[in-house]
């Protein structure tokens, strides 16, 4: 944190002078200055101008950031230089004197003090901004002062010997003001994921206690990117210095919980974090009929769900699922539909009854609609196998008991698109519902979604996920639900999603992307810098900053996905018994394969999985006993003695009617 702004020492040497000509005048938002050839000024450097004439009795101080640079000599045309060298480029050494040369810079105004009257930038001396100047220039002094204290370090501004931590305002990053963060940049540099990991570390360290608790829900959408957030990774000295500068401890996340659906076999976790050594905080994510039916429209496209189908789905959801259901057409049979298997049986009976009566409709629903909905719903458990269970078993995020400073990672990287959409829609909806009721367990949740180009494109059909993201971006901040999103091409993401992101980060950008209209406000020099940013550099836009700022951030102290995948290779596919052992060992390390094989015997696969799921869900003290209790008892074999029966008396041959 900084002290109140102090006037800089007069003894420091100016590095430039403001200049203005009729052709290049200064304005209230832009000014020009020249420097010595060896000055440390570059694109993105923050400078301070001290005016010479007082305004309203106060010497004006102007802060600016360099957005463009020019260099030229007194040469009028290139041919003069060619003449001077007799057309021989190698003759340059003949010149005893180098031509008079200028470094001329254009700076965008960050702040003027006093702020009124707002005047064109006056002529004056230009100084390199020190830490204090940077804080004032970026208006960080407003939220770094004692009493406010809502600064979240995003990185370090570095120029000409100045190493100044840059803080974002937690009110504008997490809400209730502005909120949301979007990061864009080319793929393959690990910048976007690393930046998000670093920012989450910073938030967890610096999120002010008076604002309550915060957790993060991250969707791992590709590879092992987020699979090792709790594993330490190497950090070099330079990065360690950045950590120290920002006051963030060099360590991985302490509290991380992983969730992943099963593969289609129903017992192997569908995640790259399936190594035995890391399973202690990996839970399965499985949902049953009730959970899925609420989000049927996520999985069913508009062709599937017309008004009639929608009405039937509503009927099933409201009147059938989890209800004691009966109907005269179905006779005296009662139904308690709790799983896809139950629902399939219910559909079968309804359709049989209709066929039996040769009826075309039942309860206003046409038989064709019923068949169609049956087809689509039944198909869900197949399309989302591993996530959606036939038997209704549910293993979910701990909604209601979220922990402060905990990251919940949902690995959807290996799932089909439908399953990814379903998970995203349901998790975000549940988060919103709980935050509305204030019973989630934490006050704020950061939801990180990568590949926004895919989930919220600015063109293409309207999808449920895109609607969710828009809703999240536009209304989430009031609830404490904050969207951190990332994508490669910001221009191809829905405008309202990125537009509602109060904070925007830019890593290295593709030149084609920079040529799109969204970047027209950036100068050519800033675009060039963006196109050549190194790893670990970002351009930051934040509501308090009137101009984008370049910062460096450290490599996260986390095992990178690729390294983690090598160190902790994915478990090979195994049989059911071994999968059960692996699951139960996270609860009781003494469990052996032999014990499991003996326990399950010749039982059906479904039964074993159900018992395993129940055990993992309940996390009992005595794992063995509980697991066994979930298996149907096997009746002991016993010898059955046949009762002696009297022989049938045969009829006398001569008197067949005599008895």
């Amino acid at each position, binding site marked *: 944190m900084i002290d109140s702004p102090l006037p800089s020492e007069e003894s420091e040497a100016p590095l430039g002078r403001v200049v203005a000509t009729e052709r290049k005048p200064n304005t209230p938002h832009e000014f020009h200055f020249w420097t010595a050839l060896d000055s440390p000024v570059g694109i993105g450097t923050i400078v301070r101008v001290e005016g010479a004439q007082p305004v309203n009795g106060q010497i004006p101080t102007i802060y600016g950031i360099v957005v463009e640079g020019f260099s030229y000599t007194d040469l009028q045309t290139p041919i003069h230089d060619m003449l001077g060298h007799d057309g021989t480029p190698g003759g340059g050494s003949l*010149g005893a004197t180098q031509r008079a040369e200028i470094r001329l810079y254009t700076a965008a105004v960050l702040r003027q003090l006093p702020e009124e009257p707002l005047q064109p930038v006056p002529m004056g001396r230009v100084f390199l901004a020190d830490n204090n100047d940077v804080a004032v220039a970026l208006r960080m002094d407003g939220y770094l002062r004692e009493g406010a204290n809502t600064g979240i370090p995003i990185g370090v501004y570095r120029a000409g010997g100045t190493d100044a931590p840059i803080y974002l305002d937690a009110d504008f990053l997490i809400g209730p003001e502005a909120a949301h963060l979007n990061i864009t940049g080319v793929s393959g540099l690990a910048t976007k994921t690393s930046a998000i990991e670093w920012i989450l570390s910073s938030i967890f360290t610096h999120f002010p206690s008076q604002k309550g608790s915060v957790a993060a829900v991250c969707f791992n959408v590709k590879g092992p990117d987020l699979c090792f957030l709790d594993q330490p990774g190497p950090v070099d000295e330079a990065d360690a210095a950045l950590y120290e500068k920002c006051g963030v401890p060099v360590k991985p996340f302490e509290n991380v919980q992983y969730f992943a659906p099963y593969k289609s076999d129903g017992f192997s976790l569908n995640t790259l974090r399936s190594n035995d050594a890391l399973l202690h905080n990996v839970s399965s994510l499985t949902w049953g009929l009730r959970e899925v039916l609420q989000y049927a429209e996520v999985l069913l496209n508009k062709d599937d769900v017309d008004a009639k189908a929608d009405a039937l789905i509503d009927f099933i959801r409201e009147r059938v699922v989890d209800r004691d259901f009966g109907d005269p057409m179905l006779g005296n049979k009662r139904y308690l539909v709790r799983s896809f298997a139950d629902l399939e049986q219910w559909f079968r009976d309804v359709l049989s009854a209709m066929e039996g009566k040769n009826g075309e409709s039942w309860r206003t629903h046409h038989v064709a609609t019923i068949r169609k909905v049956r087809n689509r719903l039944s198909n869900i458990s197949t399309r989302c196998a591993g996530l959606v269970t036939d038997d209704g078993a549910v293993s979910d995020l701990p909604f209601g008991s979220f922990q402060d400073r905990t990251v919940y990672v949902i690995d959807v990287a290996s799932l089909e698109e439908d399953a990814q959409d379903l998970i995203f829609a349901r998790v975000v909806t549940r988060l919103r519902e709980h935050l509305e009721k204030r019973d989630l367990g934490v006050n704020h949740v950061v939801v990180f979604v990568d590949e926004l180009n895919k989930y919220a494109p600015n063109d293409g059909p309207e999808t449920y996920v895109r609607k969710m993201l828009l809703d999240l971006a536009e209304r989430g901040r009031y609830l404490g639900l904050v969207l951190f999103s990332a994508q490669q091409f910001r221009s191809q993401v829905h405008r309202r999603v990125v537009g509602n992101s109060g904070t925007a980060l830019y890593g290295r950008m593709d030149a084609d992307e920079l040529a799109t209209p969204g970047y027209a406000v950036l100068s050519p020099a800033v675009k060039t810098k963006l196109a050549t940013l190194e790893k670990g550099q970002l351009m930051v836009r934040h509501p308090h900053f009137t101009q984008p700022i370049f910062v460096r951030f450290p490599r996260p102290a986390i095992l990178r996905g690729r390294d983690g995948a090598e160190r902790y290779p994915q478990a090979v596919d195994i049989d059911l018994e071994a999968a059960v052992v692996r699951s139960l060992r996270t609860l009781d390390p003494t469990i052996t394969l032999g014990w499991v094989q003996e326990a399950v015997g010749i039982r059906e696969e479904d039964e074993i999985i159900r018992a395993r799921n129940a055990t993992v869900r309940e996390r009992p003290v005595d794992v063995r006993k509980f697991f066994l209790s979930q298996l149907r008892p096997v009746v002991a074999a016993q010898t059955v003695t046949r009762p002696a029966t009297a022989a049938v008396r045969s009829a006398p041959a001569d008197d067949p009617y005599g008895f």
Partner: protein
Amino acid sequence: MSAVPIILSSAPHASFSSIARVLAGLLPESQPVDGGAPLELSAANTQPPRLISATVIEGGTLRARRVFEPPAVGFAAFLDGTQQSLVACYLPGGIPIVYGTVGAVIRDRRNQRLFTWRHAVEHRLYAPRANVSPSIWRSLSETGIVVHDTSETDTPDVATEHPHALRELAVHRVQKDREIAERSLALEWCSREERPLLIDGGTSGADQVARAACAIGVIKSHRTLYASGEALTAVLGLGYAERSSVFLVTSPKRASVASWYLRIRDPRGHDPMWGLIRVEVAPPAAGIDADVGRRADVVSRWILAEIAPVSLPDGRWDKMVYGVRDCEEFLRAVM
């Protein structure tokens, strides 16, 4: 020292506007002039072209000599001066009150870049005291700017009532002040430094400078040629990197200097004066001709090393070294 370099600014200097306003207040009867062109642009060069035979001190006759060694960097600094004369107002009778600015600078070369070693800029008013009343002269003095009397002239036959003649007198006086400013800087350099200084113009104006080994004058104008007959043919026929024999330039009013012509650019396809300069250095002690030649070769190599970068777009770029152009640009910025 050099031949009337002038500042061609698009607008008169800001201080000119203020002095014009002051004069309008002090001299209500005067007629202000708004934005006139510098007088140097219209001042004719009254000196007629002439040929003067000089005493050759290197060999018997003046002939072309090849500078065999390649160019070598030798100069440490460059000196030049500029002037600007503007009519601030006319008194009744067409008497011009001229606002003159003179400047001179030495630009020191360090690591191939030029930095200001010392510079001087002076502003003065120039008026013919003999043609104005004592009260007007007093009023001019009240402006706070030094007033120079242009009536004091070495040419008594000038029609001193003609406004143009009075303006020319003022220009000549401004020129004199510029030469004084240049000389002052040259003297300071010669008293403090031993590193070679290239002076734009001759060095014979001041004895101390003319005798200093570190002062080398380069003259670009050739209204006076120190050769005639075959010697002139030899001078005008010099090729690139050729110099003439060294001769002695003497004058009753100026110090003697050793001098030679040097061609610094290939004259083929150009006029005979193309790339032709005359160099002035301290005269040798009597009877050491061999040293004079060697010195001329060394200094010529130094000058040839200065032909790049070229001084374009200056019209005199064929003869002007870049360091001198840099001096003029500097003075243009500060005057």
